[in-house]
Protein backbone atom coordinates (compact mmCIF):
# COMPACT_ATOMS: atom_id res chain seq x y z
CA UNK A 1 0.00 0.00 0.00
CA UNK A 2 2.83 2.33 0.81
CA UNK A 3 4.13 1.55 -2.63
CA UNK A 4 0.98 2.98 -4.22
CA UNK A 5 1.44 6.33 -2.61
CA UNK A 6 4.96 6.89 -3.79
CA UNK A 7 4.56 5.66 -7.36
CA UNK A 8 3.57 8.30 -9.89
CA UNK A 9 3.51 6.19 -13.01
CA UNK A 10 3.42 2.45 -13.21
CA UNK A 11 3.71 0.68 -16.54
CA UNK A 12 3.06 -3.05 -16.22
CA UNK A 13 3.87 -5.39 -19.09
CA UNK A 14 2.62 -2.86 -21.58
CA UNK A 15 2.80 -3.53 -25.29
CA UNK A 16 1.51 -1.45 -28.13
CA UNK A 17 0.57 -2.93 -31.45
CA UNK A 18 0.05 -0.53 -34.32
CA UNK A 19 -2.27 -1.47 -37.09
CA UNK A 20 -1.08 0.40 -40.09
CA UNK A 21 -4.10 0.82 -42.22
CA UNK A 22 -2.75 1.31 -45.70
CA UNK A 23 -5.98 2.16 -47.42
CA UNK A 24 -7.78 5.22 -46.25
CA UNK A 25 -10.35 5.48 -49.03
CA UNK A 26 -12.64 2.99 -50.69
CA UNK A 27 -10.78 3.67 -53.93
CA UNK A 28 -7.68 2.21 -52.34
CA UNK A 29 -9.44 -0.41 -50.29
CA UNK A 30 -11.44 -2.14 -53.02
CA UNK A 31 -8.58 -3.09 -55.36
CA UNK A 32 -6.57 -4.13 -52.35
CA UNK A 33 -9.29 -6.49 -51.19
CA UNK A 34 -9.70 -8.02 -54.63
CA UNK A 35 -5.98 -8.16 -55.23
CA UNK A 36 -5.46 -10.02 -52.00
CA UNK A 37 -3.30 -7.32 -50.43
CA UNK A 38 -3.45 -7.10 -46.71
CA UNK A 39 -5.61 -4.17 -45.66
CA UNK A 40 -3.82 -3.79 -42.39
CA UNK A 41 -0.21 -4.25 -41.45
CA UNK A 42 0.83 -4.87 -37.87
CA UNK A 43 3.89 -3.96 -35.95
CA UNK A 44 4.83 -3.74 -32.33
CA UNK A 45 5.90 -0.24 -31.33
CA UNK A 46 6.56 -1.30 -27.75
CA UNK A 47 6.99 -4.75 -26.30
CA UNK A 48 6.57 -5.74 -22.71
CA UNK A 49 7.54 -2.52 -20.98
CA UNK A 50 7.77 -2.56 -17.19
CA UNK A 51 8.46 0.67 -15.37
CA UNK A 52 7.79 2.15 -12.00
CA UNK A 53 8.42 5.86 -11.71
CA UNK A 54 8.40 7.33 -8.24
CA UNK A 55 6.91 10.65 -7.32
CA UNK A 56 9.36 13.47 -7.77
CA UNK A 57 11.71 11.54 -10.02
CA UNK A 58 13.11 13.17 -13.13
CA UNK A 59 13.45 10.56 -15.81
CA UNK A 60 15.00 10.99 -19.22
CA UNK A 61 14.06 8.67 -22.06
CA UNK A 62 16.69 8.24 -24.74
CA UNK A 63 16.99 6.09 -27.79
CA UNK A 64 17.29 6.26 -31.57
CA UNK A 65 14.47 7.29 -33.87
CA UNK A 66 11.70 4.75 -34.01
CA UNK A 67 12.63 3.18 -30.70
CA UNK A 68 9.18 3.87 -29.31
CA UNK A 69 9.94 6.88 -27.11
CA UNK A 70 7.05 9.00 -28.25
CA UNK A 71 4.68 6.06 -28.17
CA UNK A 72 5.64 5.43 -24.56
CA UNK A 73 4.96 9.06 -23.73
CA UNK A 74 1.59 8.95 -25.48
CA UNK A 75 0.66 5.84 -23.54
CA UNK A 76 1.49 7.67 -20.33
CA UNK A 77 -0.53 10.66 -21.46
CA UNK A 78 -3.50 8.39 -22.11
CA UNK A 79 -4.00 9.50 -25.70
CA UNK A 80 -3.51 5.97 -26.90
CA UNK A 81 -4.27 2.76 -25.08
CA UNK A 82 -1.83 -0.14 -24.65
CA UNK A 83 -2.73 -3.27 -26.60
CA UNK A 84 -1.61 -5.39 -23.67
CA UNK A 85 -0.71 -4.55 -20.12
CA UNK A 86 -1.69 -1.72 -17.90
CA UNK A 87 -0.69 1.85 -17.16
CA UNK A 88 -1.59 3.52 -13.91
CA UNK A 89 -1.14 7.19 -13.22
CA UNK A 90 -1.22 8.82 -9.87
CA UNK A 91 -1.75 12.57 -10.11
CA UNK A 92 -2.63 15.34 -12.49
CA UNK A 93 -0.77 15.17 -15.73
CA UNK A 94 0.41 17.92 -18.09
CA UNK A 95 1.45 16.58 -21.46
CA UNK A 96 3.87 18.90 -23.24
CA UNK A 97 3.89 16.56 -26.18
CA UNK A 98 3.27 19.14 -28.80
CA UNK A 99 2.77 22.64 -27.58
CA UNK A 100 -0.33 24.53 -28.42
CA UNK A 101 -2.27 21.51 -29.61
CA UNK A 102 -5.55 23.23 -28.90
CA UNK A 103 -4.63 26.63 -30.25
CA UNK A 104 -6.77 28.11 -32.91
CA UNK A 105 -5.09 30.62 -35.27
CA UNK A 106 -8.15 32.86 -35.67
CA UNK A 107 -8.59 33.38 -31.95
CA UNK A 108 -6.64 35.95 -29.95
CA UNK A 109 -3.89 35.13 -27.49
CA UNK A 110 -6.29 35.79 -24.64
CA UNK A 111 -8.98 33.47 -26.01
CA UNK A 112 -6.40 30.80 -26.69
CA UNK A 113 -5.08 30.94 -23.14
CA UNK A 114 -8.55 30.13 -21.86
CA UNK A 115 -9.18 27.49 -24.49
CA UNK A 116 -5.87 25.73 -23.97
CA UNK A 117 -5.91 26.09 -20.21
CA UNK A 118 -9.27 24.39 -19.99
CA UNK A 119 -8.20 21.71 -22.47
CA UNK A 120 -5.27 21.03 -20.14
CA UNK A 121 -7.66 20.55 -17.26
CA UNK A 122 -7.91 23.90 -15.51
CA UNK A 123 -11.23 25.43 -14.63
CA UNK A 124 -12.21 28.80 -16.04
CA UNK A 125 -11.69 30.40 -12.67
CA UNK A 126 -8.21 28.95 -12.34
CA UNK A 127 -7.26 30.36 -15.73
CA UNK A 128 -8.62 33.77 -14.76
CA UNK A 129 -6.59 33.70 -11.56
CA UNK A 130 -3.39 32.75 -13.35
CA UNK A 131 -3.96 34.83 -16.43
CA UNK A 132 -1.48 37.60 -15.70
CA UNK A 133 1.15 35.12 -14.55
CA UNK A 134 0.79 33.26 -17.84
CA UNK A 135 1.12 36.39 -19.94
CA UNK A 136 4.01 37.67 -17.81
CA UNK A 137 5.91 34.46 -18.31
CA UNK A 138 5.29 34.45 -22.05
CA UNK A 139 6.17 38.19 -22.23
CA UNK A 140 3.29 38.80 -24.59
CA UNK A 141 1.23 41.60 -23.06
CA UNK A 142 1.56 43.69 -26.20
CA UNK A 143 0.01 41.11 -28.49
CA UNK A 144 -2.43 39.39 -26.20
CA UNK A 145 -5.53 40.64 -28.03
CA UNK A 146 -4.29 39.81 -31.49
CA UNK A 147 -5.19 36.64 -33.35
CA UNK A 148 -2.31 34.25 -32.90
CA UNK A 149 -2.04 33.65 -36.63
CA UNK A 150 -0.05 36.91 -36.59
CA UNK A 151 2.37 35.56 -33.98
CA UNK A 152 5.86 34.46 -34.87
CA UNK A 153 6.59 30.81 -34.20
CA UNK A 154 8.66 31.83 -31.19
CA UNK A 155 5.81 33.83 -29.68
CA UNK A 156 3.44 30.98 -30.34
CA UNK A 157 5.65 28.53 -28.47
CA UNK A 158 6.21 30.91 -25.61
CA UNK A 159 2.49 31.27 -25.09
CA UNK A 160 1.87 27.55 -25.38
CA UNK A 161 4.66 26.66 -22.96
CA UNK A 162 3.52 29.28 -20.54
CA UNK A 163 -0.04 27.94 -20.44
CA UNK A 164 1.18 24.39 -20.03
CA UNK A 165 3.52 25.10 -17.13
CA UNK A 166 0.89 27.08 -15.27
CA UNK A 167 -1.46 24.14 -14.93
CA UNK A 168 0.18 22.96 -11.66
CA UNK A 169 0.75 19.40 -12.78
CA UNK A 170 1.92 16.50 -10.63
CA UNK A 171 3.41 14.80 -13.65
CA UNK A 172 5.00 16.60 -16.56
CA UNK A 173 5.57 14.80 -19.86
CA UNK A 174 7.94 16.56 -22.23
CA UNK A 175 8.68 15.50 -25.78
CA UNK A 176 11.66 17.18 -27.45
CA UNK A 177 10.05 20.54 -27.19
CA UNK A 178 12.90 22.32 -25.50
CA UNK A 179 14.91 22.30 -28.69
CA UNK A 180 12.87 25.27 -29.84
CA UNK A 181 12.59 28.93 -29.00
CA UNK A 182 15.42 31.40 -28.55
CA UNK A 183 18.22 30.91 -26.04
CA UNK A 184 16.79 33.28 -23.52
CA UNK A 185 13.44 31.65 -23.41
CA UNK A 186 14.93 28.17 -23.30
CA UNK A 187 16.88 29.19 -20.21
CA UNK A 188 13.67 30.44 -18.69
CA UNK A 189 11.94 27.16 -19.47
CA UNK A 190 14.70 25.18 -17.81
CA UNK A 191 14.58 27.44 -14.81
CA UNK A 192 10.88 26.79 -14.54
CA UNK A 193 11.47 23.07 -14.82
CA UNK A 194 14.07 23.23 -12.07
CA UNK A 195 11.41 24.86 -9.92
CA UNK A 196 9.03 22.04 -10.73
CA UNK A 197 11.74 19.56 -9.85
CA UNK A 198 12.27 21.20 -6.48
CA UNK A 199 8.54 21.28 -5.89
CA UNK A 200 8.47 17.50 -6.28
CA UNK A 201 6.83 17.26 -9.68
CA UNK A 202 7.51 14.03 -11.54
CA UNK A 203 9.10 14.86 -14.88
CA UNK A 204 9.51 12.59 -17.88
CA UNK A 205 11.69 14.07 -20.57
CA UNK A 206 12.15 12.58 -24.02
CA UNK A 207 15.13 13.94 -25.85
CA UNK A 208 17.76 13.27 -28.45
CA UNK A 209 20.14 15.58 -26.68
CA UNK A 210 22.01 13.47 -24.14
CA UNK A 211 23.51 16.54 -22.45
CA UNK A 212 20.05 17.84 -21.68
CA UNK A 213 19.16 14.62 -19.94
CA UNK A 214 22.49 14.35 -18.13
CA UNK A 215 22.09 17.87 -16.86
CA UNK A 216 18.52 17.59 -15.76
CA UNK A 217 17.55 14.03 -14.94
CA UNK A 218 18.50 11.67 -12.15
CA UNK A 219 17.36 8.52 -13.88
CA UNK A 220 17.42 7.50 -17.49
CA UNK A 221 15.78 4.85 -19.61
CA UNK A 222 17.46 3.71 -22.79
CA UNK A 223 14.92 2.46 -25.28
CA UNK A 224 15.83 0.61 -28.45
CA UNK A 225 13.92 -1.60 -30.82
CA UNK A 226 10.73 -1.26 -28.84
CA UNK A 227 12.22 -2.51 -25.58
CA UNK A 228 13.90 -1.13 -22.51
CA UNK A 229 17.62 -1.80 -22.87
CA UNK A 230 18.87 -0.15 -19.70
CA UNK A 231 17.08 1.59 -16.89
CA UNK A 232 19.05 3.16 -14.08
CA UNK A 233 21.13 6.10 -12.89
CA UNK A 234 21.64 8.67 -15.57
CA UNK A 235 25.46 8.26 -15.60
CA UNK A 236 25.35 4.51 -16.14
CA UNK A 237 22.68 4.66 -18.79
CA UNK A 238 24.31 7.42 -20.77
CA UNK A 239 27.60 5.52 -20.72
CA UNK A 240 25.91 2.43 -22.15
CA UNK A 241 24.04 4.57 -24.64
CA UNK A 242 27.23 6.18 -25.92
CA UNK A 243 29.00 2.82 -26.04
CA UNK A 244 26.17 1.32 -28.04
CA UNK A 245 27.26 3.71 -30.73
CA UNK A 246 23.89 5.00 -31.68
CA UNK A 247 23.43 8.73 -31.92
Amino acid at each position, binding site marked *: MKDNQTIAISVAEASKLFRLQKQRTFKELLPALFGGQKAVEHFWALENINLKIKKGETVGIIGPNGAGKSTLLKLMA*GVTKPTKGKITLNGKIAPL*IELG*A*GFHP*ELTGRENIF*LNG*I*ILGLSKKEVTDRFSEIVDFAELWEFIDQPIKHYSSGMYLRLAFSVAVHTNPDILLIDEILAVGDDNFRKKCFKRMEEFKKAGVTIILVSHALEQIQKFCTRAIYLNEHRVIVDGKVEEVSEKYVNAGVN
Partner: protein
Amino acid sequence: MSMIKLFSQYHELLGQLTSREIKQRYKQSVLGYAWVILNPFFQMLVMAFVYSIIIRIPDLGVPYSIYLYAGLLPWTLFNNSLTGSVNSLVGNAGLLSKIYFPREIFVMSTMLAKMVDFALSCSIFIIFMIYFQIPVTWNILWVIPILLIQQLFTYALSLFLAAANLFYRDIQYLLNLVLLIWMYLTPVIYATEFFPEKYQWIFKLNPMAIIINAYRQVILAGGMPNLQSLGLALLLSLGILALAYKFFKKVEGLFADVV
Protein backbone atom coordinates in the same frame (compact mmCIF):
# COMPACT_ATOMS: atom_id res chain seq x y z
CA MET B 1 -25.71 8.28 -16.10
CA SER B 2 -22.29 8.45 -17.59
CA MET B 3 -23.56 11.45 -19.56
CA ILE B 4 -24.27 13.39 -16.38
CA LYS B 5 -20.83 12.66 -14.98
CA LEU B 6 -19.30 13.73 -18.26
CA PHE B 7 -21.18 17.03 -18.23
CA SER B 8 -20.29 17.88 -14.67
CA GLN B 9 -16.63 17.21 -15.28
CA TYR B 10 -16.20 18.61 -18.76
CA HIS B 11 -18.87 21.27 -19.23
CA GLU B 12 -16.31 24.05 -19.31
CA LEU B 13 -14.26 22.28 -21.93
CA LEU B 14 -17.42 21.63 -23.92
CA GLY B 15 -18.28 25.31 -23.66
CA GLN B 16 -14.81 26.37 -24.80
CA LEU B 17 -14.76 24.04 -27.79
CA THR B 18 -18.23 25.12 -28.79
CA SER B 19 -17.42 28.80 -28.59
CA ARG B 20 -14.20 28.15 -30.51
CA GLU B 21 -16.28 26.68 -33.29
CA ILE B 22 -18.70 29.57 -33.27
CA LYS B 23 -16.05 32.27 -33.03
CA GLN B 24 -13.91 30.93 -35.81
CA ARG B 25 -16.81 31.28 -38.19
CA TYR B 26 -17.79 34.83 -37.50
CA LYS B 27 -14.18 35.94 -37.47
CA GLN B 28 -13.52 34.66 -40.94
CA SER B 29 -16.13 36.51 -42.95
CA VAL B 30 -17.54 40.02 -43.06
CA LEU B 31 -21.17 39.09 -42.63
CA GLY B 32 -20.10 36.30 -40.33
CA TYR B 33 -23.00 35.06 -38.36
CA ALA B 34 -25.60 36.63 -40.64
CA TRP B 35 -24.91 33.79 -43.09
CA VAL B 36 -26.25 31.33 -40.61
CA ILE B 37 -29.64 33.04 -40.76
CA LEU B 38 -29.53 34.09 -44.40
CA ASN B 39 -28.62 30.71 -45.85
CA PRO B 40 -31.71 28.74 -44.91
CA PHE B 41 -33.81 31.87 -45.47
CA PHE B 42 -32.76 32.26 -49.10
CA GLN B 43 -32.93 28.54 -49.62
CA MET B 44 -36.51 28.69 -48.42
CA LEU B 45 -37.31 31.67 -50.70
CA VAL B 46 -35.96 29.92 -53.79
CA MET B 47 -37.76 26.67 -53.01
CA ALA B 48 -40.97 28.47 -52.12
CA PHE B 49 -40.84 30.23 -55.47
CA VAL B 50 -40.21 27.03 -57.39
CA TYR B 51 -42.82 24.92 -55.62
CA SER B 52 -45.62 27.42 -55.15
CA ILE B 53 -45.35 29.40 -58.39
CA ILE B 54 -43.83 27.03 -60.93
CA ILE B 55 -44.81 23.57 -59.73
CA ARG B 56 -47.88 24.78 -57.81
CA ILE B 57 -48.14 22.55 -54.81
CA PRO B 58 -51.83 22.25 -53.72
CA ASP B 59 -53.17 24.16 -50.74
CA LEU B 60 -51.79 22.98 -47.40
CA GLY B 61 -53.91 25.11 -45.07
CA VAL B 62 -51.03 27.53 -44.45
CA PRO B 63 -48.90 29.49 -46.94
CA TYR B 64 -46.39 27.17 -48.58
CA SER B 65 -43.40 29.34 -47.61
CA ILE B 66 -44.03 28.86 -43.88
CA TYR B 67 -44.98 25.21 -44.35
CA LEU B 68 -41.66 24.64 -46.09
CA TYR B 69 -39.70 26.67 -43.55
CA ALA B 70 -41.07 24.62 -40.66
CA GLY B 71 -39.59 21.51 -42.24
CA LEU B 72 -36.48 23.03 -43.74
CA LEU B 73 -35.09 24.53 -40.52
CA PRO B 74 -35.00 21.29 -38.51
CA TRP B 75 -33.76 19.46 -41.58
CA THR B 76 -30.92 21.99 -41.96
CA LEU B 77 -30.05 21.44 -38.31
CA PHE B 78 -29.96 17.69 -38.89
CA ASN B 79 -27.98 18.04 -42.11
CA ASN B 80 -25.42 20.49 -40.70
CA SER B 81 -25.01 18.56 -37.46
CA LEU B 82 -24.17 15.38 -39.32
CA THR B 83 -21.85 16.96 -41.88
CA GLY B 84 -20.12 18.85 -39.06
CA SER B 85 -19.83 15.87 -36.75
CA VAL B 86 -18.45 13.55 -39.39
CA ASN B 87 -15.37 15.79 -39.48
CA SER B 88 -15.28 16.65 -35.80
CA LEU B 89 -12.63 14.04 -34.98
CA VAL B 90 -10.62 14.25 -38.20
CA GLY B 91 -10.63 18.04 -37.96
CA ASN B 92 -9.25 17.96 -34.43
CA ALA B 93 -6.40 15.60 -35.23
CA GLY B 94 -3.94 17.82 -33.38
CA LEU B 95 -5.80 17.64 -30.11
CA LEU B 96 -6.79 14.04 -30.58
CA SER B 97 -3.21 12.80 -30.68
CA LYS B 98 -1.85 15.02 -27.91
CA ILE B 99 -4.24 15.26 -25.01
CA TYR B 100 -6.76 12.85 -23.61
CA PHE B 101 -10.31 13.71 -22.69
CA PRO B 102 -13.45 11.80 -23.65
CA ARG B 103 -13.64 12.01 -27.42
CA GLU B 104 -17.39 12.42 -27.63
CA ILE B 105 -16.82 15.98 -26.42
CA PHE B 106 -15.73 16.86 -29.96
CA VAL B 107 -18.97 15.53 -31.40
CA MET B 108 -21.03 17.25 -28.73
CA SER B 109 -19.37 20.62 -29.24
CA THR B 110 -20.02 20.48 -32.98
CA MET B 111 -23.66 19.65 -32.35
CA LEU B 112 -24.01 22.45 -29.81
CA ALA B 113 -22.53 24.98 -32.23
CA LYS B 114 -25.09 23.90 -34.83
CA MET B 115 -27.83 24.28 -32.23
CA VAL B 116 -26.83 27.90 -31.76
CA ASP B 117 -27.07 28.38 -35.53
CA PHE B 118 -30.47 26.75 -35.48
CA ALA B 119 -31.76 28.98 -32.69
CA LEU B 120 -30.63 32.07 -34.59
CA SER B 121 -32.11 30.99 -37.88
CA CYS B 122 -35.43 30.38 -36.13
CA SER B 123 -35.72 34.13 -35.54
CA ILE B 124 -36.91 34.74 -39.10
CA PHE B 125 -39.37 31.88 -38.75
CA ILE B 126 -40.95 33.61 -35.78
CA ILE B 127 -41.33 36.78 -37.81
CA PHE B 128 -43.06 34.69 -40.49
CA MET B 129 -45.41 33.22 -37.90
CA ILE B 130 -46.42 36.70 -36.80
CA TYR B 131 -46.72 37.99 -40.35
CA PHE B 132 -48.99 35.16 -41.47
CA GLN B 133 -50.86 35.31 -38.16
CA ILE B 134 -50.55 31.61 -37.48
CA PRO B 135 -52.54 30.84 -34.32
CA VAL B 136 -50.40 29.41 -31.57
CA THR B 137 -51.67 26.94 -28.96
CA TRP B 138 -50.09 25.41 -25.89
CA ASN B 139 -49.28 22.41 -28.04
CA ILE B 140 -46.33 24.39 -29.36
CA LEU B 141 -44.47 23.38 -26.20
CA TRP B 142 -44.22 19.90 -27.73
CA VAL B 143 -41.41 21.42 -29.81
CA ILE B 144 -39.05 20.86 -26.89
CA PRO B 145 -39.43 17.06 -26.60
CA ILE B 146 -39.51 16.75 -30.39
CA LEU B 147 -36.25 18.67 -30.65
CA LEU B 148 -34.76 16.48 -27.93
CA ILE B 149 -35.66 13.33 -29.82
CA GLN B 150 -34.18 14.81 -32.98
CA GLN B 151 -30.93 15.63 -31.20
CA LEU B 152 -30.76 12.19 -29.63
CA PHE B 153 -31.14 10.62 -33.04
CA THR B 154 -28.57 13.00 -34.54
CA TYR B 155 -26.09 12.35 -31.71
CA ALA B 156 -26.37 8.61 -32.23
CA LEU B 157 -25.64 8.87 -35.94
CA SER B 158 -22.92 11.47 -35.33
CA LEU B 159 -20.97 9.28 -32.93
CA PHE B 160 -20.96 6.47 -35.43
CA LEU B 161 -20.09 8.64 -38.42
CA ALA B 162 -17.33 10.60 -36.68
CA ALA B 163 -15.55 7.43 -35.59
CA ALA B 164 -16.02 5.64 -38.90
CA ASN B 165 -14.70 8.62 -40.85
CA LEU B 166 -11.39 8.33 -39.02
CA PHE B 167 -10.88 4.89 -40.51
CA TYR B 168 -12.31 5.63 -43.94
CA ARG B 169 -12.45 9.18 -45.15
CA ASP B 170 -15.02 8.27 -47.79
CA ILE B 171 -17.70 8.30 -45.14
CA GLN B 172 -17.98 12.09 -45.38
CA TYR B 173 -18.64 11.98 -49.15
CA LEU B 174 -20.98 9.08 -48.83
CA LEU B 175 -22.84 11.03 -46.16
CA ASN B 176 -23.51 13.95 -48.50
CA LEU B 177 -25.07 11.60 -51.02
CA VAL B 178 -27.13 9.81 -48.40
CA LEU B 179 -28.37 13.10 -46.96
CA LEU B 180 -29.49 14.29 -50.39
CA ILE B 181 -31.54 11.15 -50.98
CA TRP B 182 -32.76 11.18 -47.40
CA MET B 183 -34.11 14.70 -47.71
CA TYR B 184 -36.34 13.64 -50.61
CA LEU B 185 -37.54 10.63 -48.64
CA THR B 186 -38.55 12.95 -45.81
CA PRO B 187 -41.52 15.29 -46.09
CA VAL B 188 -39.42 18.47 -46.05
CA ILE B 189 -40.56 20.17 -49.24
CA TYR B 190 -43.83 18.30 -49.63
CA ALA B 191 -46.54 16.88 -47.40
CA THR B 192 -46.84 13.20 -46.52
CA GLU B 193 -50.17 12.95 -48.37
CA PHE B 194 -48.49 13.72 -51.70
CA PHE B 195 -46.48 10.55 -51.49
CA PRO B 196 -47.92 7.43 -53.17
CA GLU B 197 -49.78 5.47 -50.55
CA LYS B 198 -47.97 2.27 -51.30
CA TYR B 199 -44.63 3.85 -50.34
CA GLN B 200 -45.83 5.69 -47.26
CA TRP B 201 -44.39 3.00 -44.97
CA ILE B 202 -41.04 4.73 -45.58
CA PHE B 203 -42.18 7.60 -43.38
CA LYS B 204 -43.08 5.23 -40.58
CA LEU B 205 -39.53 3.94 -40.40
CA ASN B 206 -37.83 7.26 -40.98
CA PRO B 207 -37.42 9.10 -37.66
CA MET B 208 -36.78 12.37 -39.48
CA ALA B 209 -40.15 12.07 -41.23
CA ILE B 210 -41.86 11.48 -37.90
CA ILE B 211 -40.03 14.40 -36.34
CA ILE B 212 -40.72 16.89 -39.12
CA ASN B 213 -44.39 15.94 -39.29
CA ALA B 214 -44.59 16.40 -35.54
CA TYR B 215 -43.08 19.89 -35.73
CA ARG B 216 -45.63 20.94 -38.34
CA GLN B 217 -48.46 19.43 -36.39
CA VAL B 218 -47.68 21.32 -33.18
CA ILE B 219 -46.51 24.60 -34.69
CA LEU B 220 -48.67 25.13 -37.76
CA ALA B 221 -51.78 23.07 -37.03
CA GLY B 222 -51.77 23.67 -33.29
CA GLY B 223 -52.57 20.02 -32.61
CA MET B 224 -51.05 17.18 -30.64
CA PRO B 225 -48.24 15.24 -32.29
CA ASN B 226 -48.76 11.59 -33.12
CA LEU B 227 -47.41 10.22 -29.84
CA GLN B 228 -47.22 6.67 -31.06
CA SER B 229 -44.92 7.55 -33.95
CA LEU B 230 -42.92 9.90 -31.77
CA GLY B 231 -42.49 7.15 -29.18
CA LEU B 232 -41.25 4.86 -31.92
CA ALA B 233 -38.76 7.51 -33.06
CA LEU B 234 -37.56 7.87 -29.47
CA LEU B 235 -37.10 4.13 -29.03
CA LEU B 236 -35.30 3.84 -32.33
CA SER B 237 -33.00 6.73 -31.43
CA LEU B 238 -32.18 5.25 -28.03
CA GLY B 239 -31.47 1.88 -29.60
CA ILE B 240 -29.12 3.33 -32.20
CA LEU B 241 -27.49 5.52 -29.56
CA ALA B 242 -26.73 2.51 -27.36
CA LEU B 243 -25.09 0.72 -30.29
CA ALA B 244 -23.24 3.78 -31.57
CA TYR B 245 -21.91 4.66 -28.12
CA LYS B 246 -20.66 1.13 -27.60
CA PHE B 247 -18.92 1.19 -30.97
CA PHE B 248 -17.45 4.64 -30.28
CA LYS B 249 -16.01 3.60 -26.92
CA LYS B 250 -14.66 0.39 -28.35
CA VAL B 251 -12.59 2.11 -31.02
CA GLU B 252 -11.80 5.25 -29.00
CA GLY B 253 -8.41 3.91 -27.92
CA LEU B 254 -7.37 3.66 -31.57
CA PHE B 255 -8.31 7.20 -32.59
CA ALA B 256 -4.89 8.67 -31.89
CA ASP B 257 -3.25 5.87 -33.87
CA VAL B 258 -5.26 6.25 -37.04
CA VAL B 259 -5.81 9.98 -37.23
